């Protein structure tokens, strides 16, 4: 018999613990520092308006495993145990001072912006006594004895640096593995974090900042963890509070979290088990019991057909404790959601491949669109609220029109799943839109799209081509139940059906998958491999484009010189 050579070494660093390794990352053994580098030659992005030059690459340090986690020396590749979820670095950018705001666009539904839960007196916020003084969370994070938080490392000159804060400064909050870092991107030593929180086991997966309450002395951040727990954190006073503690309301990981627009206290969290939950940062948790009108298995069964099951309505009288509202959308992961700029709609993308547009104020799903195939991963709105852009496991970025309720174009150019999409409001106007996308293919793509420029592809073989995929086979028992709308290729589930069983009108329009032959295809204006690891976040600033990656590389590109002066196109 011949002797086999040993398998070639693949992991230069021993894989230290399961959680870190679950996304393929090597995990260090000791605590290290962030490193900033200025790659020579850079990674220029060439577009019509000029060249974006790479300013720097800040590499966040991955923390070592918590001492309580036994190192796994030789992992069994077939181990069937659950792997804890984790996510790549996502940045939260906060400009405190008087940096100019993002350009605003006229919104269709102008007027007073409605607030979620307005109609419910039980939700009326208590009268604030002390004027402008914001309420802070109760517990001091530095002195915390919680088993959830391992330790907190603060910069020795943090307070001094906060006081000397440049009014144009830019803070960033970043999650990496079990660490959560507060960075001062405006300072000279931006690689030194102001504060680093190390959690025991949980990873922060998503976080958001309340724009309404933001000031130089107060920042409200909520972060959702892999354990399901949510932290409300105020970094300036270093105070925090825990919400959904030990998953009492929902014990599945928080995949996305956002403050409700226009609310000081309410935020929405998407959980991996398909539930959307609205929490109040001020309220205590309580064990959640669905508020069903007539709790029976039959009702539950009927509900399962609904695109949204309201397990607790915002209009519920019982508002003493969290959750404020709880909706179940599916039995699959909610990947992301996004509020429309006019604060009236909510776009949600799920692992089941659906994009659901909600009137969240009324707790109704208006439209369900479907990806070409595979799950959807990310979603955002155009600054004027007319378009929704999604990215998914079909390697496509897809543009949907809200007013027309249909797909506008599929954007082909990624070589792997699309992990984040964002519009560049500085390069958008009434007719043209600029957006970017990043993906698991380590690429950054930029796209321009204008209302008039899209063309449908050649239409040769239409007649026979779209048979199976585009037509929903109507249920043999109820051939007339669904009717296909000839103009929009959409389908409305008839109100009769639901009225019979559920007693209410179903407002949802379920759109069919458009065949390739009838959908416009948009190519990118720029495509560039920007790193060696999957990119998972993308952001546009007035003076820069930023991305962050799975392993913690934060890259910043300066905009072309001539493009800095105000909005509008220069090219």
């Amino acid at each position, binding site marked *: 018999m011949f002797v086999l050579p040993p398998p070639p070494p693949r992991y230069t660093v021993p894989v230290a613990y399961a959680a870190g390794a679950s996304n393929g990352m090597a995990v260090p053994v000791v605590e290290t520092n962030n490193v900033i580098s200025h790659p020579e030659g850079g990674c220029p992005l060439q577009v019509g308006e000029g060249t974006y030059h790479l300013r720097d690459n800040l590499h966040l340090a991955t923390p070592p495993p918590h001492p309580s986690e036994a190192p796994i020396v030789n992992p*069994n590749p077939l181990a069937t145990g659950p792997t804890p979820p984790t996510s790549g670095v996502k940045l939260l950018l906060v400009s405190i001072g008087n940096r100019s705001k993002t350009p605003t666009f006229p919104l269709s539904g102008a007027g007073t912006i409605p607030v979620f839960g307005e109609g419910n007196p039980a939700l009326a916020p208590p009268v604030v006594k002390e004027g402008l003084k914001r309420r802070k969370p109760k517990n001091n994070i530095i002195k915390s004895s919680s088993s959830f938080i391992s330790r907190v490392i603060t910069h020795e000159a943090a307070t001094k640096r906060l006081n000397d804060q440049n009014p144009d400064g830019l803070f960033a909050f970043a999650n990496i593995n079990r660490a959560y870092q507060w960075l001062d991107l405006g300072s000279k030593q931006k690689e030194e974090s102001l504060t680093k929180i190390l959690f025991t086991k949980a990873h922060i997966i998503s976080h958001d900042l309340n724009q309404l309450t933001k000031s130089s002395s107060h920042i409200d951040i909520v972060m959702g963890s892999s354990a399901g727990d949510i932290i409300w954190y105020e970094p300036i006073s270093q105070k925090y509070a825990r919400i959904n503690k030990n*998953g009492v309301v929902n014990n599945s990981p928080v995949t996305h979290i956002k403050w409700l627009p226009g609310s000081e206290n309410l935020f929405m969290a998407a959980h991996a088990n398909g539930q959307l939950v609205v929490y109040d940062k001020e309220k205590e948790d309580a064990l959640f019991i*669905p508020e069903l009108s007539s709790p029976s298995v039959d009702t539950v069964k009927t509900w399962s057909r609904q695109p949204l099951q309201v397990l607790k309505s915002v209009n519920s009288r019982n508002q003493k404790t969290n959750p404020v509202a709880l909706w179940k959308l599916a039995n699959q992961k909610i990947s992301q959601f996004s509020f429309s700029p006019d604060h009236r709609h909510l776009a949600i993308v799920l692992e089941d491949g659906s994009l659901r547009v909600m009137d969240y104020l009324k707790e109704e799903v208006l439209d369900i669109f479907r990806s070409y195939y595979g799950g959807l991963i990310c979603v955002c709105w155009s600054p004027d609220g007319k378009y929704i852009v999604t990215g998914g496991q079909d390697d496509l970025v897809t543009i949907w029109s809200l007013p027309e309720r249909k797909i506008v174009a599929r954007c082909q150019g990624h070589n792997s799943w699309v992990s984040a999409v964002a519009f560049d409001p500085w390069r958008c106007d009434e007719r043209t839109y600029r957006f970017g996308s990043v993906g698991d293919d380590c690429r950054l793509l930029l796209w321009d799209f204008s209302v008039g420029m899209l063309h449908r592809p050649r239409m040769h073989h239409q007649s026979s081509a779209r048979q199976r995929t585009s037509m929903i086979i109507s249920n043999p028992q109820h051939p007339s139940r669904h009717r296909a709308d000839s103009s929009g290729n959409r389908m409305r589930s008839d109100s009769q059906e639901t009225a019979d069983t559920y007693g209410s009108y179903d407002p949802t329009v379920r759109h069919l998958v458009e065949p390739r032959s009838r959908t416009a295809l948009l190519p990118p204006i720029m495509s560039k491999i920007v790193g060696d690891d999957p990119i998972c976040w993308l952001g546009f600033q007035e003076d820069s484009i930023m991305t962050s990656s799975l392993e913690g590389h934060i890259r910043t590109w300066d905009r072309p010189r001539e493009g800095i002066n105000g909005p509008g196109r220069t090219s």
Partner: protein
Amino acid sequence: MGSFLRSFRRDVGSSTPSVGATPAKKEPQPPPMTPLEKMLQDMGSVREDGSDKFFGMENVSWSILRLSLVANDRSNSYCNSILQCLYYSVPFREAVINYPTRTPIESLEAAMTKNLRFQNVAANLEAEAQAEKQRIANAQRPGAPPAQPQKPEDKDSPEYKKKMALQTLPLLETKNNAVSYGMSESLFTSLKDLFESVVASQSRIGIIRPQHFLDVLRREHEMFRSAMHQDAHEFLNLLLNEVVANVEAEAIKQPVPERSILPAEHAESSEQSVSSGSKTPNTTRWVHELFEGTLTSETQCLTCEKVSQRDEVFLDLSVDLEQHSSVTSCLRKFSAEEMLCDRNKFHCDNCGGLQEAEKRMKIKRLPRILALHLKRFKYTEDLQRLQKLFHRVVYPYHLRLFNTTDDAEDPDRLYELYAVVVHIGGGPYHGHYVAIIKTQDRGWLLFDDEMVEPVDKNYVRNFFGDKPGLACAYVLFYQETTMEAVMKEQELENMNSNIADFNEASMKQNGFPQSPGLAHVHSASQIPTHEEALRNTGLNRAPTAPQLPTHTEDTGPENVPLSPAVAVPPPVPPIPEAVSSRPLSPKKSDVQSKKERAKEEKERKAAEKEIEKVRRKEQEARVKENQRREEAELKAALEASKASKADEDRRHVPDTGKDSDSKKSGGGLSRLKLGSKSISQRLGKDKDVRATSSGLPAVPSPEPSTPTPNSVPPEHTQPPSSPHKGSPKESHIIHKPLGHDDEHDALKSPKGDRGKWRSFSLRKKSFSILS
């Protein structure tokens, strides 16, 4: 066996009256239930289509090994994983079982009593001793965690689980039934033997020994005789080609009787297998109908702009990989345009001369089952050998093909991932294969030789190639589906989880707080909820397999408990935590978590529990009822969509038939071997040189490309005398160009060998016709 007896006993304890065995209170403790057994308990009666059988496959070479104590590299996991993937393709399984005729279930059962072997203690002990030795000998088996002799056995290790499976589960051996099929023995008949044995088995779980199949395989293909590590994809391609060949050879042999059987048989089979997509196994083209697709290579001359096209068929697609890419992107790369220029010019018929041209390959006819081979083994110049690529290549649960021609029928066809063959190991010359398969109604299962384990849906995504442990997806099986079927499945999943939530919630309301440990939900998983829902159908389970108890003489003491023992719970500790996240279901929790609960909730009164139990039972009955109704609806919908599919398939048939006719012109032996299409641009150029230099105008070159100098002449020009230099072997060459002199010899011989055997069988055939 153990499982059957245990579940039997549980039933006895809970619902049915005693069967006559004496109740025994203290008995040797049976081994704890495996997760699979847990999942399958309380299932309804055994189905006839085999969709509810979950058999491990014995790694036969291990048993050889136990005797010889040589290092294990004769693993047949390559074969086990592929066979499992094929078995769980409903249309393929149905076709194999129904061709040429379906063996009546009674006669199968009769045969089964002979073939099903139950373990006895002595053998177990012996096996254990041998396994121990083997484990030591085997310590450096790549891919799997090394066994550590100094430690007590790790109950979670795959080795331990496989050993236990071998010791406790019924072992099926197949017998050559070729005569009863009216066929001469071939790889197809032994495959049919395997499938039929599993379908006919009264036990839902067990282990099947593919020894006979391997014997036939090794007899006919020398390359599988060697101790070398075999390639699962090569095996798949060979098996499919061989099945085509066997079936067609039979069809030529006896064309008339086959036709005569057709109507009656057809009616019968369609009744039995309504849900199967392929109900026409009587035609010999069923493999083609399932796996075969057509590729068109379009070459556009840049001088005269004339487009010339050439079609070829494939049984699977081999795609080149790139770091950080997706299957979608790999497929698209394969169809990317390619410039033919410089030394690589194209001979244009129209302009008459070498011209610059643009070439692309697109899919013209989409297969119903798309087998995608990810080319993870790549020859690297600097190392002078094949290397395994650990690129991260993501694959979605659903897929459509972007690279179709404009006139392709149904270019937006939706595929669903139903099986993944995973290669574990650092290189191409050694390693281990397992399969992860989505079963019809039991969610995803992991098949690792003898071991079968339910896994979470997310588990399928652990093999993109970026995780520690050297395990990567190697062959992906996508099967055709429809959006409606997908949405229906999602709806059902949603409902099951809602019902589970609801039950849980009502439990909470009634003062049963979940203990945090049990309530840990890790993900939106499909299986647990499914399990939950299906458990509800458990009460009306039919007492299974009356003849089985006759075998109990053979069983060891640990299996004796055939008593209606008043549901003595199996010991709790070693039970691996179920994949599921749901709180233990009522029925189970009554027995299993009693101890824990007693500890946690000592103050809770038993009376309270009783009330709760009764209430839950009522609820369950309701859920069960709804469940059944829902399933019936789902089935109806599926059938409807299947019917429409079948309709379309019928439309497919004529042109595929034509296709084959034109190709068969060379006579029985010159049958075109169907290759796996290897997709690589660089390689493509290589062979275009050949095409141009051969000066065959507009006879396009064969697509599967060979990077090695010993290029294979175009298939079309093959003389009938050497019909086997086809593409399946080419992929082999691609894989192993190292030392290709020796290898090539090794390759040639099986080819020649096979060719000989083929002509031999032909002679035999003609002989039989003459006589």
